[in-house]
């Protein structure tokens, strides 16, 4: 008994060893290097001088860093909750369909999610084109003239958020659908017998039972959207940097455009801290809500 227990532990250790090794080499070690780098004035690659906390002082006085934090926060607000709600509503709709119809509709909603970001960019950029974009019809109705959404300061972020929701909601729909399917039909039957209407059923049965999935989706979304970079980088294409300056873009600029490796590492540490803090806060808030 004891022997077999021990051999089990040995086996377990052997089995996780490759992962742990890769994790140490590919994640923990570079992270430590990054933190060390943030105390130097090194260029992108090469030796630098130890300058202590100077980079951190500079960061707290850096107006552009604050802009990047605000922009990233704005993007998170525009995407995380809307994307989750859209996913839930479509999942409820899809859940009502049966058989092949369900598969077809689900496939249509999931299709954008498997596209690479460059394809998404080319497609939407073409649809929004001022000269012959299909989206210019409705835009001209709203603004009275053809409008270049990715070159109009206040429209940039909402437009990228819209594209992002269209692109990624397929994944949320799948998660919600799995959650909805795990709710046993008997509960709804019982509710119908007790004369509960559709709204009552949703708020009293579906919503509470689907909550764990919602919490999961929100957390995944939050972490993903805090790291927003590719869409913004592509859509800005020589246009405005300021309204689109998100944290990862700012790190990219410091490292690759200005060759300030030390300062880029400092901002990376800040992003790391922001993601961990916000995730923990959100998790705590959601757990408190779930415990009710």
């Amino acid at each position, binding site marked *: 008994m004891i022997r077999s227990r021990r051999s089990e532990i040995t086996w377990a250790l052997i089995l996780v060893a490759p992962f742990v090794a890769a994790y140490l080499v590919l994640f923990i070690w570079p992270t430590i290097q990054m933190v060390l780098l943030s105390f130097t004035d090194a*260029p992108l*690659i*090469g030796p630098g001088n130890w300058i202590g906390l100077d980079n951190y002082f500079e960061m707290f006085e850096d107006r552009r860093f604050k802009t990047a934090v605000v922009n990233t926060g704005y993007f998170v607000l525009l995407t995380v909750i809307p994307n989750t709600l859209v996913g839930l509503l479509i999942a409820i709709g899809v859940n009502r369909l049966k058989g092949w119809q369900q598969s077809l509709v689900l496939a249509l909603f999931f299709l954008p999610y498997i596209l690479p970001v460059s394809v998404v960019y080319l497609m939407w950029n073409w649809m929004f084109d001022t*000269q012959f974009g299909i989206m210019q019809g409705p835009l001209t109705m709203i603004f009275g003239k053809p409008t*270049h959404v990715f070159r109009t300061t206040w429209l940039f972020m909402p437009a990228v958020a819209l594209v992002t929701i269209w692109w990624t909601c397929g994944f949320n729909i799948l998660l919600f659908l799995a959650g909805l399917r795990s709710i046993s039909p008997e509960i709804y039957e019982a509710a119908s017998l007790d004369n509960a209407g559709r709204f009552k059923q949703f708020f009293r049965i579906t919503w509470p039972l689907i909550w764990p999935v919602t919490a999961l989706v929100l957390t995944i979304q939050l972490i993903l959207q805090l790291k927003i970079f590719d869409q913004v980088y592509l859509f800005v294409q*020589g*246009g405005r*940097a300021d309204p689109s300056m998100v944290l990862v873009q700012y790190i990219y600029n410091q490292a*690759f*455009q200005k060759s300030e490796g030390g300062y880029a590492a400092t901002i990376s540490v800040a992003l790391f801290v922001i993601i961990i803090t916000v995730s923990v806060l959100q998790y705590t808030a959601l757990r408190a809500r779930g415990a009710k």
Partner: protein
Amino acid sequence: MKKFIKIALLTTTAAMLSFGAQAKETVVWWDFLSGGDGVRMKALIEKFNAEHADTIEIQPTTLEWGVPFYSKAQTSAAIGEGPDVMTYHLSRMPLGISTGTLAEITADDLAGVGLSGDNFAASNWQAAQADGKQYAVPFDIHSVILYYNKDKLAEAGLIGDNGLPTGLDGVDNFNAALEKLQAAGTQYGVSIHSAAADSQWRIFLGLLAQQGGEFMDANGEFLSGDNLDKAVNVTELVASWVANGQAPEQTDYAASIALFTSGEAAMHINGVWEVPTMTDLHAKGELFEWGAIQLPTFYDKPGTWADSHSFVIPNNVGKEQTAEKRKAVMEVIAWMNKNSISWANAGHIPAYTAVRESEEFKNMQPNAVYSTLADTAVFDPQSKLAGVASPVYDAVGNYMVPAINGEMEARQAIEEMRDDLNDQRD
């Protein structure tokens, strides 16, 4: 025994090294040249390799222009994996020097292949120096020019007796010309890429210099004193073209060219590198009679933004170039300059004076007409923040481009741009 093997190894290595010196040198070459530039450069490299079949072979690689190229240049040199020679914009040299990416090119290096400062225009040669050291050898001067549609200008009475545009100098004349062109039935008087920061910077710096303004003063401060007012003048001028419908709003690079080539715009401001595009279209019979001139003098004196493609030798850490390799690299640089007449076909003005003043270049159209701009060319300020795809370009995109398209008030935009850039100084 061990000792014997060591000695044997050492002697064979030594033998191989001395043998290698007589063998063919390979020169690893990186550039960022695409489109028409890329085609012409590849032809030059092939020609060089054919002529030096027994001595030197260039092994070229083309990387992506802009931030990707310059970050790769820095990182590869820092770990000793950079090329033997690469193309470089003179405007991006300050950053390259501050990160230790560029190796010094000594007087001996130059003399070894018969090059010196006398072969180049003085302003161009000095732009390749920092603290009295030479870090680059210029290859061309490239700039923005005014492309024009001869038929449309003739209809509006803007072609002089010499067959060249007339009546475009001075802000008032130019604006009047735009109105004449529109009255004659053209949708836009002038097509600019109003949504692109790099292009607006190229127009702006020239027009700032035409008022005697400088973007960065001797103390390294951006838009100090009345330079700010001069910058506002330029921004308001370009914004007025867009606001009055004489230039297209929020237009990207490709679209602005299309407006000109389709005849919807009578003039077009763009880089000399689009000359081959026009030449090829015209040769196929798909383009009207066109020409190109130096940008008009809108203010007090002529002046045009310019940059320079040049050759640099990366400072490969831990891998000093051998004397033979250095000689081969210098040979490549010298040969390219002496043969740069075919580079002029891409619209560029050769940096090498003997080629620029040759009969062949003087007969090249429209290059010969606009090559006068080299005499009053203004290079980017020598700052780590300036140059190709730099923070200055970003600032132009953030403040000047919205102002040009009527999203921001010009003075407020330029003040914010000034503060932003001054914030970023070391």
